[in-house]
């Protein structure tokens, strides 16, 4: 099974991830008015939080670089990719091809996420889930969706 192995410890990677997110947030907040403590603008709270988050992420990165820390568990590509694509396929097909085909396609893609799935079982589950979702979401909850294209 194909795996993505990240060298180095969890602190470095989690710190980098958080630093990226806080930088993005700071950039988004920078266009908002800050105001002052008496009359805070929309940007005040997000700016303060992203700055503090940025500082903490740097601290986490530094800790990761100077202490041995825990290794990152390998990331297996297959289940991750299958789940991602199954959602994308579902979201793309749902408005265009209707609920039944969208669910069928989602199950078909997800089927490859585990080496233990069996074709017959997955087909049965796709049919069962399509019926269940049609009844619950379209007839009971009244979601405006078509069943077929």
């Amino acid at each position, binding site marked *: 099974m194909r795996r993505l192995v990240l060298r180095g410890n969890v602190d470095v990677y989690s710190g980098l991830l958080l630093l990226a997110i*806080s930088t993005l947030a700071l950039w988004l907040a920078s266009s908002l008015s800050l105001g002052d403590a008496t009359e805070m603008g929309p940007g*005040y709270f*997000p700016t303060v939080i992203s700055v503090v988050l940025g500082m903490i992420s740097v601290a986490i990165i530094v800790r990761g670089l100077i202490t041995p820390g825990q290794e990152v568990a390998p990331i297996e590509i297959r*289940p991750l990719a299958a*789940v991602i694509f199954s959602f994308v396929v579902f979201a793309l097909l749902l408005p265009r091809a209707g609920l039944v085909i969208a669910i069928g396609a989602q199950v078909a893609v997800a089927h490859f996420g*585990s080496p233990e799935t069996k074709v017959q079982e997955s087909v049965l589950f*796709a049919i069962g889930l399509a019926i269940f979702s049609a009844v619950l979401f379209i007839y009971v909850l009244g979601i405006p969706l078509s069943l077929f294209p």
Partner: protein
Amino acid sequence: MIETFALLGHGFLVAATPQNLLFCLVGALCGTLIGVLPGLGPVATISLLLPATYALDPVSAIIMLSGIYYGAQYGGSTTAILINIPGEAASVVTAIDGHMMARQGRAGEALAIAALGSFFAGCVGTIVIAAAGPPLATLAQEFQSPDYFALMVLGLVSAVVLANGSILRAISMILLGLLLGSVGSDISSGLPRMTMGMYELSDGVNFVAIAMGLFGVAEVVSNLESKSTKAVEVAKINSLLPSIATLLSAKFAVMRGTILGIIFGILPGAGATVASFSAYALEKKVSKDPSRFGKGAIEGVASPEAANNAAAQTTFIPLLTLGIPTSAVMALMVGALTLHGITPGPLIIEKQPDLFWGLVASMFIGNLMLVVINLPMIGIWVRFLNIPYRMLFLIIIVVSAIGVYSVNNSTFDVYLTLVFGVLGYLLRKLDAEPAPLLMGFVLGPAMEENMRRSLIISQGDYSIFIQRPISLVLLLVALALLASVSLPFVKRRRKEVFVESEI
């Protein structure tokens, strides 16, 4: 006192309508099922079912969702005792002596004591909610903006203290949640902010998408990585009737567990898992012969099971009286109430008596249902133990995709769920628990609002937070908590607790 009984009576009228009884039963059944199934926990299940509760009236929705939570505590013990795999984190310690009893041919006895102990604890826990809820809420009505701000800080700090792993990472998860909570419209100007120009985000990030992504989807991906367990050997169940001697020796253990559970449930951040671990440790300490533990001591089953169930009830107290969720499950309850336009807080008992008293009454009914569901019907649940994950995960991803779509009829939310699913998966790989993130997200907007309001009152003077006695005390407690986890002794102890819980 008499008033409480009158209100509780009213609650039973609410909870005993056919519709509410049905949803209480559905919740109890779902809870038992997911408690029995390893690999599907209450947090993921409640997120999955949030969209379906949208169509219900709020009282039924909350009754059902809470049923799932405390029902899972019952179901978790079944798996722990019969196959030595805890169905729930809170049943980890139950497996130690419970499974040993099963191997000695005493599975029925262990199951009966677990269920009866849980029932007793659940009822006592519910009485505590009924008794302590209203006075606490009245007290909380004295709170003003600065006090609320301080209370939320305390709630978030407790989430940090009791989170697994690195404290810095837990703090950063909370901050991340606060940032996500600030996406949407600015409270005072109503202008969109942090939306990256996406109009779908102008009402804020969809709570269901975050919860389902972080807990449902992310869990599926991690579970698919681990090899599934082969068909497991299930211990045989003989008579479900415990002997008088067993009952007598379990009696005090159940009471001790219940008291401990009640306390741990109310404490922010602790909850059912920590309660059951502490209960097991306590039993070992007070026992005359500690060497019996690990070899099938009934106290080792009775006390932790009572504790986790008592805690599962009393953890509702901070939510229903102060509006502060103390765990991921309670954060989901906030989300469920918010979907129905109800803001949890001290006014909920007064303004929504049906909701509060109906929920309390439903907890008695639900616990009674659970004993019936779990004891005479145990054979049915045992059959579910062998459902392989390759089938379960298909259900989870399809239900989460269509479910999140149904909230706003938007495919944008499906993609959003996916984004949070991948984020949640990465955070798990990086040893960062996403539960504090959810709490930050839920508390963020109210926290900002109260901070802004306080500072308007004080004209920009931050000392308002330490001038008011209530907020000063709350902030000092938060500070003390944060300082205490940095002490080497507590640090070591904290590590021990969590290392144990991972076994």
